[in-house]
């Protein structure tokens, strides 16, 4: 035991972090080539597909736009995706590939689910195996799993261009970025992960559910579906919406420790690799390494804490006759405490939101870790693209604050940070915080909101706080006791997801446009270095302070009270 967790826990976490770093570096370099429009080893295969798609769409990839044009592309693509998915979910019972004869979704559930997938949140108000036809899963949800992640990567590419260019208003071509991210990054990686997962027993079939005759003579319906192909992009695209209700705790989504390791790597691999993409694209690798280091230095201690809290467990279990307090409620035997806790941290550090254990049954402090990681604004690795652009917003704030402290003009990568950038950065950081607190208050003060609460007492409050935090930060995981499939929660959380996505994404594009237009000033003796341990430390301080100061009262009312009640007995 060291810091309250076992040697094996350290070993599993260490192996995970090593594998993540080892894979992120080369993938990051590859993604930089893709987003810069350079040729790479997939060009020869997929070039014709790319050219055909550009031609049919009427897109000239070299015709770049200013940030408003880029935003217009994002919004129009979002609208088209939302409408298609909404209509599909409202009509699925008449569609093909519906062997279970599953009915159409209610309008509020269809709204919530469509918004959820189009904003890369993948909050599940629905229970996959009983609510979604195979057709909806693959043609509706799988497609948005890809393209919503690709939109995040595209917007991040625009921000990087804003930082690395000068004296121009052009930040890129949204359609070219988005299509390339799908073709060259998400699709090939998904195919690899699909095959790897299938080897472990993740299912991939269009057969109808089967009924087994159990050894004790009962009939057991076993739900099936095209799982592996969706599972792969669900993890890689920081999506998280499972084919099954219990997501990656379900043995058909995640059958073995190896499938679990692959899926955990898939959660963080793209957001982590984008740090190195960033370093390469701005021509200063140390900047990318610094951001990766800042993310990792937050992630590892939080993960260790989550493992420790779950291992320390729930003393009530011992009172009930268990040999240990280690909290196995809601966890799968094959994953145990360690992998359930690492997953909980990874899925909420990234805006993934898949689960391999039930977070509602975590210990109060163990469950506070994923809540906090979301409350940091999904920037500790964060979502595909959205994590890095959110992190760069914090970097801009940090440069500004550090500049104020030492009396220097704030600069980042040779760009002077002015009042406009700080205003936009403040909107992107503070508005989501405000949404979370206001929506939580609204839900716990109204009978409609209170009606969904499942666990009594402080844990019930935590369920609401978690749901609103998850939706606004586009995560998608839940304290799933909350009965969220009601018109009230479907609408409230749908609006939270939309606000959370666009009130970060649009200010980020505005920053990109503003920075692109500026001159690059040469580095001087007065320039604050942004790759040093000192700067990394201040950056972490800003992120943690904003998160903790904003939410301390709410967290005190939820997890902290629940913890005190638990140890009091």
């Amino acid at each position, binding site marked *: 035991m060291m810091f309250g967790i076992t040697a094996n826990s350290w070993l599993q976490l260490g192996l995970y972090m090593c594998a993540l770093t080892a894979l992120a570096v080369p993938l990051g370099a590859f993604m930089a080539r893709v987003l810069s429009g350079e040729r790479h080893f997939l060009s020869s295969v997929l070039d014709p597909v790319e050219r055909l798609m550009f031609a*049919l*769409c*009427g*897109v000239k990839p070299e015709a770049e*736009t200013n940030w408003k*044009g880029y935003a*217009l*592309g994002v*919004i*129009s693509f979002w609208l*088209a995706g939302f409408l*298609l998915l909404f209509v599909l979910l409202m009509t699925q019972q008449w569609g093909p590939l519906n062997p279970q004869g599953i009915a159409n979704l209610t309008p509020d559930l269809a709204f919530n689910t469509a918004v959820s997938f189009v904003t890369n949140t993948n909050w599940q108000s629905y229970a996959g195996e009983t609510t979604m036809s195979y057709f909806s899963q693959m043609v509706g949800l799988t497609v948005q799993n*890809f*393209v919503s992640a690709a939109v995040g990567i595209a917007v991040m590419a625009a921000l990087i261009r804003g930082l690395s260019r000068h004296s121009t208003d052009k930040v890129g071509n949204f*359609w070219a970025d988005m299509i390339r991210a*799908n073709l060259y990054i998400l699709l090939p990686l998904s*195919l690899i992960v699909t*095959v790897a997962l299938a*080897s472990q027993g993740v299912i*991939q*079939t269009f057969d109808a559910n*089967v009924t*087994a005759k*159990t*050894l*004790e003579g009962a009939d*057991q*319906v*076993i739900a099936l579906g095209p799982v*592996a*192909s969706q599972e792969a992009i669900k993890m890689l695209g920081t999506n998280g919406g499972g084919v099954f*209700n*219990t997501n990656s*705790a*379900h*043995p*058909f989504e995640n*059958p073995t420790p190896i499938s*679990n390791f692959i899926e955990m790597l898939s959660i963080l691999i793209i957001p982590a690799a984008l740090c190195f993409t960033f370093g390469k694209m701005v021509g200063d690798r140390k900047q990318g390494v610094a951001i990766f280091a800042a993310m990792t230095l937050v992630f590892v201690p939080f993960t260790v804490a989550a493992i420790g809290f779950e291992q320390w467990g729930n003393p009530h279990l011992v009172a*009930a*006759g*268990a040999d*240990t307090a280690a*909290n*196995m*409620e*809601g*966890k*799968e*035997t*094959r*994953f*145990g405490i360690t992998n359930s806790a690492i997953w909980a941290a990874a899925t909420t550090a990234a805006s993934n939101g898949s*689960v391999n*254990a039930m977070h509602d*049954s975590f210990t109060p402090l163990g469950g506070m870790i994923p809540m906090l990681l979301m409350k940091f604004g999904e920037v500790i690795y964060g979502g595909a693209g959205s994590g890095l652009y959110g992190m760069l917003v914090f970097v801009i704030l940090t440069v500004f604050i550090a500049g104020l402290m030492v009396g220097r003009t704030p600069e980042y990568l040779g760009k002077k940070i002015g009042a406009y950038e700080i205003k936009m950065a403040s909107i992107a950081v503070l508005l989501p915080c405000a949404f979370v607190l206001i929506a939580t208050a609204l839900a716990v003060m109204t009978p409609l909101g209170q009606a969904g609460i499942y*666990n*009594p007492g402080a844990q019930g409050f935590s369920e609401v706080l978690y749901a609103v935090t998850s939706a606004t930060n586009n995560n998608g995981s839940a304290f799933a*006791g909350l009965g969220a499939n009601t018109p009230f929660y479907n609408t409230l959380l749908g609006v939270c997801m939309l606000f959370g996505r666009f009130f970060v994404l649009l200010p980020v594009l505005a920053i990109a446009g503003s920075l692109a237009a500026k001159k690059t000033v040469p580095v001087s003796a007065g320039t604050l270095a942004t790759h040093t341990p000192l700067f990394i430390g201040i950056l972490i301080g800003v992120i943690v302070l904003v998160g903790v100061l904003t939410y301390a009262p709410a967290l005190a009312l939820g997890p902290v009270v629940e913890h005190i009640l*638990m140890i009091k007995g």
Partner: protein
Amino acid sequence: MSLVSQIRPAVVSLGLLTLLLGGAYPLASTALVGAIFPNQSAGSLIKQGDTIIGSRLIGQNFTQPQYLWGRLSATGPAPYNAGASSGSNLGVNNPALLDASKARLDALNVDSPVPVDLITASGSGLDPHISTAAAEIQIPRIAAARGLPEDRIRAAIAASTKGRTFGILGEARVNVLEVNLRLDGKVK
């Protein structure tokens, strides 16, 4: 530039990407993994003749004394409903959590303490595994119910036990259904 100018790329790109990512990709994946891993991709089903008697990956509900019992399952309307997976979502202080644990302990009818996984519900409600310790304490009951020596039961459990992968990943575990199939002579 206006929103109207974006209609064509939005609609056409969405259509093309839907064909590629929502059609070609899952269909090609199904064909590919169906060819390489036919058994796994179909659900690792176990058949006796034409009858499906379960899946290696999905737990079953066991309450009879001659069988090894698995984790508690919170699926509705009955435990281990693989048509609607669910965890209990009970919080640490919820009285229902301890009621379920105590009811399980009574049914087991052994001296406490017992391994914690045996009195807690799994995340999926379909967990096919229990810990080795949780299997061990059930051996006397199964042996008595079957009129077999305990070593026979222990051997069946050992044959269905897996350690951590590469000695590192995951946890050691016993596949409950597999043990019971062995005990019934349906799997060697």
